[in-house]
């Protein structure tokens, strides 16, 4: 479906945000869309992008210029059309009675949490935002409490975002709920923390996607219940169910 781009700008640092027309079709935080880069066949496949907001008839995505597809995407201008399919996949579904909502975000993986917070303004959320350096922390989210970690120490704590999470007092509480999106290593660490601390958690996984709607089987995720598709059975999976491969 072709949608008109209303705004397309740099967020400073490595990320860009694109807003295009989209009706409020009930899309939920954690879900994603598939963006076609061009009408030509190269690049061929659509690129999966998390929904970073849906409000007042506009959908936002926030992306990192990572390779050829996203570089070409960055050249699109406001007023032009972008071909987007979705929304696809599962969403974050934090339990109503959770004592604390802890959001662990790695780099551009913070994008879905912007939408999550916007849709849950009245729920208190603590953000843990990590990246290699300052440039990777470019998404600003109005969390009720925010902690940062950078591998080079340029912002707040030097080290991994999961270390900051472990130091947080809420971790002592079994009724806390952790949600995470970011690189695989981070997700795996969060998964292990959830299991060890017996805290419920949800992880949003990134896999290569051919279609985004369940038919190519390119996005298999090994779980305790056999192969699942990241695009329809995920991207958000329950912590403690993934079989990680090295």
């Amino acid at each position: 479906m072709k949608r008109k781009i209303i705004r397309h700008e740099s967020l400073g640092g490595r990320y860009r945000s694109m807003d295009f027309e989209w009706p409020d079709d009930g899309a939920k935080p954690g879900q994603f869309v598939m963006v076609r880069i061009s009408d030509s066949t190269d690049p061929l496949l659509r690129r999966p992008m998390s929904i970073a907001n849906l409000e007042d008839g506009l959908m936002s995505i926030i992306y990192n210029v990572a390779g050829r597809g996203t570089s070409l995407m960055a050249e699109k201008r406001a007023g032009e059309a972008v071909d987007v399919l979705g929304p696809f996949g599962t969403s974050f579904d934090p339990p109503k009675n959770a004592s604390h909502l802890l959001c662990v975000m790695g780099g551009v993986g913070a994008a879905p949490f912007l939408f999550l917070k916007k849709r849950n303004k009245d729920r208190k959320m603590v953000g843990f935002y990590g990246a290699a350096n300052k440039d990777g922390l470019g998404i600003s989210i109005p969390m009720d409490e925010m902690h940062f970690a950078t591998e080079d120490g340029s912002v707040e704590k030097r080290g991994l975002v999961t270390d900051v999470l472990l130091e947080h007092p809420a971790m002592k509480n079994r009724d806390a709920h952790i949600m995470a999106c970011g690189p695989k290593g981070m997700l795996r660490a969060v998964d292990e923390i959830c299991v060890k601390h017996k805290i419920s958690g949800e992880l949003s996984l990134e896999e290569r996607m051919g279609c985004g709607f369940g038919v190519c089987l390119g996005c298999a995720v090994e779980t305790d219940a056999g192969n699942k598709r990241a695009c329809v059975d995920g991207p958000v999976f329950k912590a403690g169910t993934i079989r990680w491969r090295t």
Partner: protein
Amino acid sequence: MANMKVRIGSLELANPVIAASGTFGYGVEFADKLDLRKIGAFATKGLSLKKRAGNPMPRICETPSGMINSIGLENVGLDAFESEKLPLIRKTGARVVANFFGETQGEYVAAAARLDAMDGVHALEMNVSCPNVEKGGIEFGSDPVLLEKLTASVRKAVRKPLIVKLSPNVADVRPLAMAVQNGGADAISAINTLKGMSINVRTREPKIRRVFGGLSGPAIRPVAVRMVYECATTVKIPIIGLGGITTVEDALEFLIAGATAVQVGTMNFVEPSICERLADELSKWCDAEGIADVNDLVGSLKLG
């Protein structure tokens, strides 16, 4: 309006556009994306007697105007297909080509016989790009003697139209097309994916965990058109042409090369309603060009 109906053996299709195996799930996933009754048919994901988990990740990567996949023939198996998928598929009113494979001739025959008995399966498409575990892993589709034997034994077991899907990973496709015809199949589909490989130069790892995978998409189209032409000029049975079809012109190229029908694969991922659009555009193209019957285009290549 031009006649769009084509025949594949005893099966009549409303139009020549079929969705290709492995790119259309079990059809039901597309029920909200297009009108399944407006396309000729769809082919299911390749089915085997028992369910299969498939290959480790990563299974796909993008290449110039194409992609490589190594899904490993993951599928739900015939039991779940019959009890869970087929009842839903029947409700859509779609024409169904059941794509299947095995690791031994016995498995092929058993799978084919079961599909032949299933209500709601209109035709069978045999994927022969699979290693024969009894013959040291040589692909069924690469040896004419093996292929003719396999085709003949499956033929004996089924009454529904039997299509054999040829692999392009052979030096000469013509003896294989001949073997399929001699074995008694109703039609040939060509081509399956081309064996390919792609490397991440930074990590020096193959982009696909299993190193090799099947290349598909617009990149393979000229190879596919050539092979369809070779098949069509070798055998009398109808050919279903596929490989990289993206536009109505691409579909026409296959028809003119000698295909009676076409399949659209990878592009279903990019544009999920493409089969319906191409069926519609093909009909409009015939009308605009004053072609009364789409079958008149088949094999109409003019050589100088």
